[in-house]
């Protein structure tokens, strides 16, 4: 049992190590003066095919994009939860299977509701 | 074989409808004075026997004392074509009537003639430079452009 948690601990350490190095690498290289640093205002302005941007992009756009995001979020969480379950399906046995069925059923009800309300149709 | 309609025959028909609009009619082209251009063009486009509904190209030539604008019109069903010319004599701010409402294909070509040759087309929805930028001095394709 301990070795299983040991694996998770190892996985956690590697994950943290990886994120920290990728974040700190450019900072340290810049500190060691390997990466040249020449900031100028044009370099930090947004790139729009070689032109200056026109007007503001913080504008009010269509509300339906929000529905897309919501439906995606629901189904994405379901997928994330399915992965670990699918990996060790045999150890969990039928009780694990029932739990997952309940979870899928809940998300399925939400999906049917969104479908009936014609959320994704673009009027 | 695209038959080039003979200028004389078409000029004869036009003389009846639009008296005084034909300045000169060569072997395969008609020269129309500029203010009756739109009427003649509409007639050429809509009459049954001619229906020249395809504007092939518009170009302008600078002959020092006058500009000559050449339109080639083609009819896709009858497979015949006609060259229509107008002349405008002012040098500083030449203007002509735009044929965009008859043939939408004239849109960019007229803007390009304005940009490079300096001939303004009245009635064009978007009459501004097409290939050069707004602050450009002069019109490059003119013969007296340095």
């Amino acid at each position, binding site marked *: 049992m301990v070795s299983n948690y040991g694996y998770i601990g190892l996985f956690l350490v590697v994950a943290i190590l990886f994120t920290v190095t990728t974040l700190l690498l450019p900072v340290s290289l810049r500190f060691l003066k390997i990466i040249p640093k020449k900031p100028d205002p044009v370099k930090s302005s947004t790139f*729009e*095919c*070689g*032109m200056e*941007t*026109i*007007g*503001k*992009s913080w*504008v*009010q*756009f*269509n*509300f339906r*994009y929000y529905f897309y995001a919501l439906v995606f979020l629901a189904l994405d969480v379901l997928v994330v939860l399915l992965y670990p379950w699918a990996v060790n399906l045999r150890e969990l046995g039928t009780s694990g299977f029932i739990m997952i069925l309940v979870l899928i059923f809940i998300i399925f009800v939400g999906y049917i509701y969104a479908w009936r309300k014609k959320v994704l149709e673009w009027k | *074989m*695209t038959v080039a309609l003979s200028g004389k025959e078409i000029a004869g028909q036009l003389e009846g409808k639009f008296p005084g609009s034909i300045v000169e009619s060569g072997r395969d082209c008609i020269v129309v004075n500029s203010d009756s251009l739109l009427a003649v063009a509409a007639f050429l486009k809509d009459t049954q026997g001619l229906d020249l*509904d*395809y*504007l*092939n*190209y518009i*170009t302008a*030539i*600078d002959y020092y004392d006058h500009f000559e604008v*050449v339109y*080639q019109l083609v009819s*896709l069903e009858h*497979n015949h074509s006609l*060259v229509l010319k107008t002349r405008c004599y002012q040098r500083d701010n030449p203007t002509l009537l735009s044929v965009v409402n008859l*043939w*939408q*294909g*004239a*849109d*960019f*070509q007229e803007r*390009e003639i304005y940009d*490079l040759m300096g001939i303004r087309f009245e009635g064009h929805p978007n009459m501004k*430079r*097409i*290939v*050069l*930028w707004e602050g450009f001095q002069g019109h*490059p*394709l003119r013969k007296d*452009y340095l």
Partner: protein
Amino acid sequence: MALKTEPFVLNIGPAHPSTHGVFRMRSTLDGEVIVDMEPVFGYLHRGIEKLAEERTYTGVIPLTDRLDYLASMSNNLAYCLAVEKLAGIEVPERAEYLRVILAELQRIASHLIAVGAFLNDCGAFMTPILYMIREREKILDLFDMVCGQRLTYNFMRVGGVSQDIPEEFLPALRRFVGQMPGFIDEYDRFLKENEILLARAKGVGILTREMAINSSAGGPVLRGSGVKWDIRKADPYSIYDRFEFDIPTGAAGDCYDRYRVRVEEMRQSVRIIKQAMEQLPSGPVRSEVPHLIHPPVGEAYAHIEAPKGELGFYLVSDNSIAPYRCHVRAPSLINLTALRDMVVGWKIADAIIIFGSIDICMGEVDR
């Protein structure tokens, strides 16, 4: 309840991977849907028509190479036809056949890039275009054999062709003409009923028949809308009346029809090259034309069916060694007239495909 949304302006600008060169669409967007679009040109305007007025008639030929740099052979052919019509110069038989073979090879090469770039815009990233560039390399080798250059050939002269073809050209051409239909069938097997391509291109960017004629579109754009108009049949120039080939036309005038028209045209071009190869006579490749031509005072307009549409040269001469005026009827610029009406109402992804299906070349648009 009305959803209040605000438009914002986006530059699908000059340095954009899918605008086939330096073309800018200043589009006003409402969310993803294009409300208004204004095409902006001029980023490659080199003033070729002004430069042509300071060069001799033969000196203008290298300029015409750089007009539509994907179909330089066709530009040379159109310009030489115009000067020959102006000066009344005869062209020997062998030169006529060589011109037809090279112009049709150039049409295949240009259509390969057109179709490849169109599929690239549809999202089939780099796969089809790499296949099609592989075929185009074979054509560029043939051109390399003939005139030593891969892109800007400067091969045709007033009164014929600059030099005869080497003897290994015909076997290589025979091998290419044998393989090419197989390659085109290969593309069709992948792409003809590909449901992604059908979903993305069918019914998108409809150019109706009347709008196509009214905005004087030409070439595959016009034929895609069902108008059977091809200069090689309607007004046969050089010796095109000796070959049989048919003209593919689309029905609905959407992006898929224009794509199908271009693929079919490649097959017809192979047919023409086969017939031209058998009837290729021997003899001189260039009539005696003085180096400095003095055409009589007057004007002439000659047009050909270039891969992108009707390419014409309108020359005015005043009996001097340089053209008084050399106007180029650029098919790409005129095909773009209807772009705004085809794009408004669609999303950005569709606008990129509609623009790709018109297949323009910026060297010709801006001249």
